[in-house]
């Protein structure tokens, strides 16, 4: 096929596969007209991956949905511009014509594959349907053959048998593979993937990114990869378009974007990323909040947060247009693109200039690592009562089935976990979804009842506490939830939300108000906003409110359950810094639960890695990250995409195969053995105990043989 030739020859074809020109999308809202996409232009050529990267509300997803006519909300006011596919402007096509092209010439892969599949139709039939809609001549048998071929290609094992299964019999990762198979079924010219791996665990994400690469090679399509994850961009993209406030602020090839960003937003975004390979003393967040799209300023949308602008008149007055740089390998919408990478910029820009270097954080990272290395054992501060001590905690849930809802099996969400946190310490608890980390966090406050084991908060047994005793414990240990939208009472003002714990302690109203003011200033919120409702705040601000509320009862332990994973990168750094400051001020201990290994490295001094309800490895950060002895930890670390395109071809990535087994029926012996690259017969028979290895604890038979473990 012609387009395969183009892709493989490597020469730049003359005509782009898809070109979006001057796209404008507007919505009518009660607050006025919101211009979600404000004149975006980009093009993607056959065989290349263009990554559109930006934060929530930057217009990246809306732009493609509008371009393909898939936006059908009632308040859509205007879509204008040009979307040229194969010489035809999609925006001018009648619905019927457009539908004929969707799925044939251009296909989409959605974030949530599980809900994008029809739950009551066989998986294979769903793919076959896509084939036969566009090719009426195809017989049922031929379609079936082709579908089996496709499933095989995207790595679905036993494709012939899986053809007849339903989506609920597939895991999240497998569903995404099916979506990809469906998307490439008609060999489209353009593949649009909207956050295809965001809902997946890192180990599965690595697999899916590989499949996506394979799909591109197989079809020769141009891929538009929409994502917020700079690591994913660096691993997969050829070219990058950075969006901010509904516009594209910078484009360029992936290497120059990462090494010599020419827009201050791009540079700032990279500085604010926590890194897996080192700990910075402090992250460098982008100050302020993302722009409000209903009132876009006349000048540059980034100007209020920009370190390069320094309040210069032109930035505030005139909107910068996207201009190609002299070398011709990129364009930047900044008045001063040459100042961006300049080392003299206000924030220490050592990192922005060379984000790949490990010494980016300078001597500070060394300092941070040293004390950890010197105190390898949690047992050293024995004189103090640990803030949290968990001994052999077990939590199991019945799986009910049958007419009488009898427990037919048990899910061991947490299965014999022990850990301790000294005063002022931070324990990072990492693991993939379903490993039991959230259940463990909830056990601490007895929001979930433990089935066994002991949990002590400052020496008080949570499980045996009386009603009032438990209430006292819950004051000393507070929780911050993942989703700040859900964890604040929407019917109370933020001030009242923060005052809730104080009200429960029967503090008089006037005192409450006073305390809330103080808490607001501690977490960096403005007192004037006290009387607003949570819905009026952005995610980052809401998480600050949630933190303020947790601080209200002056806890000694803060349980942070994925506190930043719902936040954008630039805001995430603000919140992480806030948490670090608060800990320094008050000496609180943190139990920091997260799936994000880079974030945990940044905040924690001790780490515990969980897999299927058990801790497989724990120890000081430096030990676990730099000298991991458990094959699971190793694979996990290897799966995290590195936000640095340099040397990605040679980087050794060993994605973990398969999915996490069901906790209802965990594998015998070592639970990880089904996915372990070094498993032997012994692993199936004998369960490895968590034992001391090289200054940390590892539950693997081969933890000592560090040579063998290196996968």
């Amino acid at each position, binding site marked *: 096929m012609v387009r395969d030739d183009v892709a493989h020859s490597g020469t730049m074809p003359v005509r782009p596969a898809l070109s979006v020109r001057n796209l404008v999308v507007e919505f009518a809202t*009660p607050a006025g007209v919101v211009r979600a996409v404000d004149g975006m232009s980009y093009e993607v050529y056959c065989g290349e991956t263009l990554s559109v990267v930006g934060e929530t509300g930057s217009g990246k997803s809306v732009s493609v949905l509008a371009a393909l006519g898939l936006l059908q909300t009632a308040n859509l006011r205007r879509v204008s511009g040009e979307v040229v596919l194969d010489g035809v402007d999609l925006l001018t096509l009648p619905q019927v014509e457009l539908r004929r092209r969707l799925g044939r010439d251009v296909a989409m892969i959605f974030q949530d594959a599980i809900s994008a599949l029809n739950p009551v139709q066989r998986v294979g039939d769903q793919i076959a349907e896509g084939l036969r809609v566009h090719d009426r001549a195809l017989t049922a048998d031929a379609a079936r053959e082709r579908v089996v071929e496709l499933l095989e290609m995207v790595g679905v094992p036993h494709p012939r048998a899986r053809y007849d299964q339903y989506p609920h019999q597939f895991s999240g990762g497998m569903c995404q593979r099916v979506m990809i198979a469906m998307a490439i079924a008609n060999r489209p010219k353009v593949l649009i993937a909207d956050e295809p791996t965001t809902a997946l665990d890192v180990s599965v994400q690595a697999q899916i990114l590989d499949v996506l690469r394979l799909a591109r090679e197989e079809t020769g399509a141009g891929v538009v990869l929409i994502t917020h994850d700079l690591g994913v961009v660096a691993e997969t993209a050829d070219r990058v378009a950075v969006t901010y406030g509904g516009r594209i602020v910078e484009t360029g090839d992936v290497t120059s974007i990462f090494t010599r960003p020419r827009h201050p937003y791009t540079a700032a975004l990279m500085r604010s990323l926590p890194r897996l390979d080192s700990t910075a003393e402090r992250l460098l967040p982008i100050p302020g909040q993302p722009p409000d799209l209903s009132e876009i300023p006349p000048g540059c949308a980034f100007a209020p947060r920009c370190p390069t602008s320094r309040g210069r008149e032109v930035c505030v007055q005139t909107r910068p247009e996207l201009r190609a740089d002299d070398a011709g390998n990129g364009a930047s919408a900044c008045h001063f693109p040459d100042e961006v990478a300049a080392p003299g910029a206000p924030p220490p820009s050592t990192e922005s200039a060379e984000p790949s270097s490990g010494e980016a954080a300078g001597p500070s990272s060394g300092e941070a690592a040293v004390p950890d290395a010197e105190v390898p054992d949690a047992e050293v501060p024995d004189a103090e009562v640990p803030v949290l001590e968990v001994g052999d905690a077990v939590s199991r849930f019945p799986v009910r089935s049958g007419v009488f809802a009898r427990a037919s099996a048990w899910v061991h969400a947490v299965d014999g976990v022990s850990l301790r946190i000294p005063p002022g310490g931070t324990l990072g608890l990492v693991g993939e979804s379903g490993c039991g980390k959230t259940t463990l966090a*909830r056990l601490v*406050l007895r*929001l979930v009842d433990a089935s066994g084991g002991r949990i002590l908060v400052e020496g008080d047994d949570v499980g045996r506490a009386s009603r009032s005793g*438990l*209430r*006292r414990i*819950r*004051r000393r240990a*507070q*929780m911050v*939830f*993942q*989703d700040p939208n*859900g*964890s*604040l*009472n*929407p*019917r*109370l*003002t933020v*001030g*009242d939300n923060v005052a*809730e*714990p104080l009200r*429960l302690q029967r503090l008089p*109203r006037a005192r409450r*108000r006073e305390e809330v003011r103080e808490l607001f200033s501690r977490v960096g919120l403005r007192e004037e906003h006290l*009387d*607003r*409702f949570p*819905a*009026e705040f952005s995610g980052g601000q809401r998480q600050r409110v*949630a933190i303020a*509320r947790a601080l209200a*009862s002056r806890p000694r332990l803060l349980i942070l359950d994925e506190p930043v994973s719902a936040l954008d990168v630039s805001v995430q750094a603000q919140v992480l810094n806030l948490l670090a400051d608060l800990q320094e001020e008050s000496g609180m201990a943190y139990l920091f639960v997260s799936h994000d290994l880079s974030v945990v490295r940044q905040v924690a001094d001790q780490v515990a890695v969980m897999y299927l309800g058990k801790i497989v490895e724990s120890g000081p950060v430096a030990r676990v990250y730099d000298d991991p002895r458990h094959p699971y930890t190793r694979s996990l670390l290897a799966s995290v995409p590195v936000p640095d395109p340099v040397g990605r071809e040679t980087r050794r990535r060993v994605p973990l195969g398969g999915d996490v087994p069901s906790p209802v029926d965990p594998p015998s012996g070592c639970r990880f053995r089904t996915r372990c690259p070094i498993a032997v017969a012994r692993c199936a028979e004998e369960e490895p105990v968590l034992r001391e290895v090289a200054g940390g604890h590892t539950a693997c038979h081969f933890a000592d043989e560090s040579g063998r473990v290196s996968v």
Partner: protein
Amino acid sequence: MSAPRRRLAAVRRFAGSRSAVVGAVGLGALVLVAVLAPIVAPFDPAAQGGEPLLGPSGAHLLGTDQLGRDIVSRMIHGARGSLIVAAGAALVGAGVGVPLGLVAGYLGRWADTIAMRVVDLLLAVPGILLALVIIAVLGPGRVNLILAIGIGAVPEFARLTRVATLEVRERDFVLAAKGMGASTADTMARTVLPNVLGPIMVQFVITASTAVVVEAGLSFLGLGTPPPAPSWGGMLQDARSYLYQSPTYGLFPGICLAATVFFLERIGRGLQLAVGGGGSRAGVRGVGRGAV
């Protein structure tokens, strides 16, 4: 302590829908007339002595009834009865049904089973029959009328509240309240209740409009407001006997009834739109009588 901006937004949305404004203005006028009845009414509603069964004329705008009483005055005073019964019945229904549903939904298990079986029992008897039985036992009278209609409305409130509670219960902020050391009662009253109030408000208005009709129906059967106190339903019943002599007699109470129900309906719609975006997504229409 709170400047209720969010509530203001809901009020704006409510005021933005024309049908809601029509309903609110209409109902407002009715309430005003009912409150000022002794002042606005041209005659004493119980005063007999005029010529019976007159048609509309200058002296008696809508004519007189079989005892020569002024129909306009009787209707104005009758509005009081209808509105008091409507509001009272809705209050009784909500007052019993909401706590019942809240407890059932939040505590679950045996509390849920017991509460819902009680509700099923109430639902097994048709509303009008239930009211008939209650009045037969308690005897007629305005308070008993309110109780009778109100108890019939309990199941709807209970089910609606229960469904909304089931949804809100799983949200993180309820878990957060528990994590702060809030007691179960406090969590229910302070955290869950405000978040299920939206659909309950809508149901309140719908119940009030049903109560107006049921009250008229019971009065029509002679079990409502006891004479000589005027009530729309009672007037309708009286008018039935004189349909041929004075066709306009029954027309106006009927129009008033329909208008009141219409206004309440409109307000209900407006409320539904205004609070729809709030804490709970459980819609009123989602839980009909047949819902389990």
